[in-house]
């Protein structure tokens, strides 16, 4: 408490001195920071001919195109299909990762032997392996195992995301006092009951951290679904955006801008809704990583 008061006094003195200059500076920086997104937004309402010619101009009578970029873009890319694929893949993978890796982490922390130690070391090791190292064999294997659909790819994400998740859950399990679990076991809980009724609820902060880090990665991931999914049937949001570029580098910038706006909107809504958890999750994840 004492420390906090001192801190507040210090900052109060500084705030009086040049706080307003800093606030002004950061306000300008904020405008600057948000400008790229604003630019995409205004261009999404312009006819494509005007986007490349004068990207910084606001839409006016001649260049205004209403929602037609959005309508043609949604038709051309089946955007809502892509959104639902992205949602299924992200939610399914994050749920699978949380459930299975937390169970695995608890087991390998509580049971110490050669086997569990090597599992832990392998998980650590997998975290430094770049995707390019496994991309070719993985995409061929996934095709052979018929995993080229949004449900199958959840399995691939569980395998590829396991390293980081197991590592973070292990760090947390080590800090849970053993007595709680022992008491539960003495009272007659099976290991499964102990885990789901006692341990898993205690893990909640780490669950949120892992969920946020994995969701950010999987939602935005381009290359893995591009190589694994059967693209004739299933595309995710990053894939449809990249597909707008076409084979010879010709881009319809009108639909591109509209689709970028549609790709950003769900992210902003999600961020506004759970901003606090996201920022806390990132800090917690960094401290343990």
């Amino acid at each position, binding site marked *: 408490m004492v420390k906090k008061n001192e801190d507040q006094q210090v900052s109060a003195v500084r705030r009086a001195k040049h706080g307003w200059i800093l606030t002004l500076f950061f306000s300008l920086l904020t405008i600057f*920071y948000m400008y790229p997104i604003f630019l995409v937004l205004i*261009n999404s309402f312009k006819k494509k001919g005007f986007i490349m010619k004068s990207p910084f101009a606001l839409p006016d009578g001649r260049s205004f195109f209403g929602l037609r970029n959005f309508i043609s873009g949604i038709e051309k890319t089946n955007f809502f299909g892509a959104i639902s694929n992205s949602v299924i893949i992200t939610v399914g993978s994050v749920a699978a990762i949380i459930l299975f890796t937390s169970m695995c982490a608890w087991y390998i922390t509580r049971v110490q032997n050669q086997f569990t130690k090597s599992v832990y070391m392998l998980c650590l090791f997998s975290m430094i392996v770049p995707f390019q190292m496994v991309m070719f*064999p993985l995409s061929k294997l996934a095709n052979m195992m018929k995993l080229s659909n949004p449900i199958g790819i959840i399995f691939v994400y569980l395998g590829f995301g396991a390293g980081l998740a197991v590592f973070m859950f292990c760090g947390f399990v080590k800090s849970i006092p053993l007595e709680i679990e022992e008491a539960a076991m003495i009272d007659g809980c099976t290991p499964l009951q102990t885990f789901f009724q006692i341990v898993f609820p205690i893990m909640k902060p780490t669950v949120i951290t892992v969920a946020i880090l994995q969701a950010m990665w999987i939602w*935005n991931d381009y290359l893995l679904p591009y190589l694994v999914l059967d693209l004739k049937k299933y595309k995710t949001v*990053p894939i449809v955006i990249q597909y707008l570029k076409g084979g010879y580098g010709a881009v319809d910038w009108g639909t591109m801008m509209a689709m970028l706006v549609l790709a950003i909107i769900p992210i902003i809504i*999600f961020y506004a809704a759970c901003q606090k958890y996201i920022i806390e999750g990132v800090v917690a994840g*960094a401290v343990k990583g």
Partner: protein
Amino acid sequence: MDKSIKKYVAIFTFPTLIAFTLGFLVPFLMGIYLSFCEFTTVTDAKITGVKNYFRVFTDPTFVHALGFTALFTIVSVITINVFAFAIAMLLTKGIKGTNFFRTVFFMPNLIGGIVLGYIWQILLNGILANIGRTLTYSPAYGFWGLIVLMNWQQVGYMMIIYIAGIQNIPGELIEAAKIDGATSWQVLGKVTIPMVMPSITICSFLTLTNSFKLFDQNLALTAGEPSNNSQMLALNIYETFYGRNGWEGVGQAKAVIFFLIVAVIAVTQNRLTRSKEVQQ
């Protein structure tokens, strides 16, 4: 307790382990094996020894991509960390609107690399149009474009970590230094920076690996243009696999080299900065 849990090994660990084995371990080992083979798909591999590795280093696009990536990584790690630390310092002074600014600066992180690439392509091409050029006019434009993009995306993330580090410094430590007559710069260099060394370790590790492994942003912003001169390593490996016939083995050998470089960087970086951390 150990014993009663032990029997449950299948339920607790097998789902993760099976997925981990098929999704990571097997492809990884196959990757190492295939780097010594000639193949077009995984079932027709013929062992050819280290030939692929020789071809990697006689491929000028790989050597160029390696240099480009190394330079890019150095510049982006320095700029991102300096900006993130500076903003974090200013945003821990308790000014009005701190929370709002933090929220805004963090936001670009949630946007994926592909989307970011196209956002910045329209903006940077619009600016370059004033001098009648585009991003793909020269690799230097692609290079600095990527630097700006990565800063925009990552400064907020690193800032959040630095803010947490700075707020952990006990207030009396800085007070004591000031009473002893330290200037603001001395406080920064002798107290603040040593105390946030754990955050510096993490942030430099994250920016280092993110920059070195960059793929999506590179693909969306310039796709390696002009003529592969703004191509980074990850994209070069991808193009070797899927853009050239008969080069799959070379692509896999490049991937193994890429992995080894990332591993060496990760381990040395961790050792170096961890040794500079002070005990609290």
